[in-house]
């Protein structure tokens, strides 16, 4: 127990806060602690969690990415055209295309960062605008509803009727989310590549000197993030059954905030899958709770911004162990 507290302080604190908020909501908002609300929360969070898993790897490797949500929109459009080209496709082809397109977009970021030595935030601000501008310009902002049937069919993995007659169900994206989390966990915790990512994120120069290839690390991290963005894009279409070019823009900040809440650090070398799931859940539960309590949706962003600001100021205070340093 003491070991968990020492090694995962952010995760433990976050879990405690999540339990407190959930308990508070269970007491004040009658609809919160019902099976259907909790499963809906899980279904609606699945896309964000998949993104968060990808972003986690980038943050561990010492980078930052704000282009992934827009990249997911680009992948959706590329997929629509690719599926038409292959005559409809199916789930296997769908995943293959989404992962391939997403990874390719991630590699664009990686190439600019590694080959031209550009600072990661600047690269992803640039690609964020380039991807979004080109997407809106080329598609003219057109929505697409005419999608392959397999893609938009609701696949229910588990369902159950509650006593009041409402159905609680878990849909396919949640299953995919679990697989993505498992894959990310194996990558960062159980492969030597994962250990190298942590080492590279914590100290790039030191990692280079013990023989870790910086190029490989940057491409693996951004490739992984891109692949997750692609999968998340594919899943989001499965949930909403339409492709809209500006549907996902803006969500990158919520996900980034959630992952950072979960203990990942800008500057690299720290972060866990558990923390990133808890972070997304905390943001989702807060939003859900504010909704159920009838608080204006406009207040939501303000509350989230304040929570992150408080979280990073206090986590810094508690985590400083003889280490100081402000600017990057």
């Amino acid at each position, binding site marked *: 127990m003491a070991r968990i507290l020492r090694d995962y302080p952010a995760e433990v604190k976050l879990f405690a806060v999540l339990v407190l908020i959930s308990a508070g909501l269970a007491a004040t908002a009658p609809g919160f602690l019902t099976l259907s609300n909790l499963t809906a929360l899980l279904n609606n969070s699945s896309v964000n969690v998949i993104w968060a898993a990808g972003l986690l790897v980038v943050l561990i490797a010492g980078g930052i990415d704000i282009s992934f949500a827009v990249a997911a929109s680009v992948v959706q459009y590329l997929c629509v055209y690719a599926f038409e080209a292959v005559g409809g496709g199916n789930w296997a082809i769908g995943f293959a295309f989404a992962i391939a397109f997403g990874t390719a977009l991630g590699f664009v970021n990686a190439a600019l960062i590694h080959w031209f030595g550009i600072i990661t935030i600047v690269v992803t601000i640039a690609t964020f605008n*380039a991807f979004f501008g080109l997407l809106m310009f080329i598609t003219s902002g057109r929505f697409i509803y005419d999608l392959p049937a397999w893609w938009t069919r609701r696949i229910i993995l588990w369902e159950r009727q509650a006593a009041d007659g409402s159905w609680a169900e878990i849909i396919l994206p949640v299953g995919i989310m679990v697989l993505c989390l498992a894959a990310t966990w194996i990558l960062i915790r159980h492969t030597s590549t994962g250990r190298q990512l942590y080492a590279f994120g914590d100290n790039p120069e030191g990692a280079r000197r013990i023989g870790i290839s910086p190029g490989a690390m940057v491409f693996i991290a951004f490739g992984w993030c891109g692949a997750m963005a692609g999968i998340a894009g594919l899943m989001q279409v499965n949930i909403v059954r339409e492709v809209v070019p500006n549907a996902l823009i803006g969500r990158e900040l919520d996900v980034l905030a959630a992952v950072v809440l979960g203990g990942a650090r800008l500057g690299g070398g720290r972060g866990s899958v558990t923390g990133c799931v808890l972070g997304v859940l905390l943001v989702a539960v807060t939003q859900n709770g504010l909704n159920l309590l009838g608080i204006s949706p406009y207040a939501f962003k303000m509350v989230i911004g304040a929570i992150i600001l408080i979280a990073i100021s206090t986590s810094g205070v508690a985590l400083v162990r003889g280490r100081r340093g402000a600017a990057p």
Partner: protein
Amino acid sequence: MTRRRLWLGQRLGQWLGPEVVWLLGFLAVVIAGFALLTPRFLTAANFGSVAYQLPELGLLTLAMLIPIVSGGLNLAIIYTANMAGLTLAWVLNAHGGPEAGVLWAVLGTAAAVGVGALSGLIMGLVIAFTGAHPILVSLSMMIFLRGLGEFLTRGGDISGFPDYLKPIGHGAVLGVPVPLILFLIAAFAWHVLLSRTRHGFAVYMIGSNIEAARYSGINTRRTLTLIYTLSGVMAALAGVLMLTRFNSVRVGHGEALLLVTVLACFLGGVDPFGGFGKVVPVVIALVILQVLSSGLNLLGANQHLSTAVWGLFLIAVMIIRFAAREWRRRRKD
């Protein structure tokens, strides 16, 4: 003839720095290019609109400049400007709207600057005392301010201001637009601050190596706090100017400018890792970008195409800077 021009170029280079000569050359190329592409480009009306549009982007870029030189970033500048604009708007609306007295406009502007300074101060304190990353701190401040603004305005605009504010956004003194004069004063102040004061020196030191700066006796915490406070003040002034330019305030107004301010800093030779960067080249970079933007407008590019162009242009600038660095390094070896 060529020899003489080279000599002049070198003298200019010694006086203002080599990047200024490159940027002026690039500006000439951009102007010549658009002049060939569209006859409406080389007109007084076009340059007039450039002169009126440049200052708001310019003030925001100055707000971005000092944090970047110190090795950080302030992503909250646009929403700080919006919140400052809203503050002035509320003060005016609470005291008669279009009939509000000059005193209220002055007090409102002071309150607006206070709001900007406060948001910068909070960011600066968090960055200085917890060691949290400036990107993260300013990002959460940005999310918070946007949420706060949307919560308070419900996403709508606020308008209806006294007429005497109009000349600040649209007037001219001896043919020089008032906003441009304000911007030049602000740029000069920033130039003096960075190149002639203790604080400016400390900003460069922190940007180069914060630990070394601390060990050499610079109060890094106070400097960092002041950096973000000043950035907030400058963003607030941009917000007040935007209010007078558009005669309305809305949260999210000028969102797209965030990328352009970063672009202007890097085009102007500011080191993205901090420690180097001057005001004069950044001002020339701003002129280039504003000319480019008006040229694209005249050519009929839509808003999304411009967004894409800015993104691609930022990548191109960074690649060219990388190539120049490599070339210089090879020549030295």
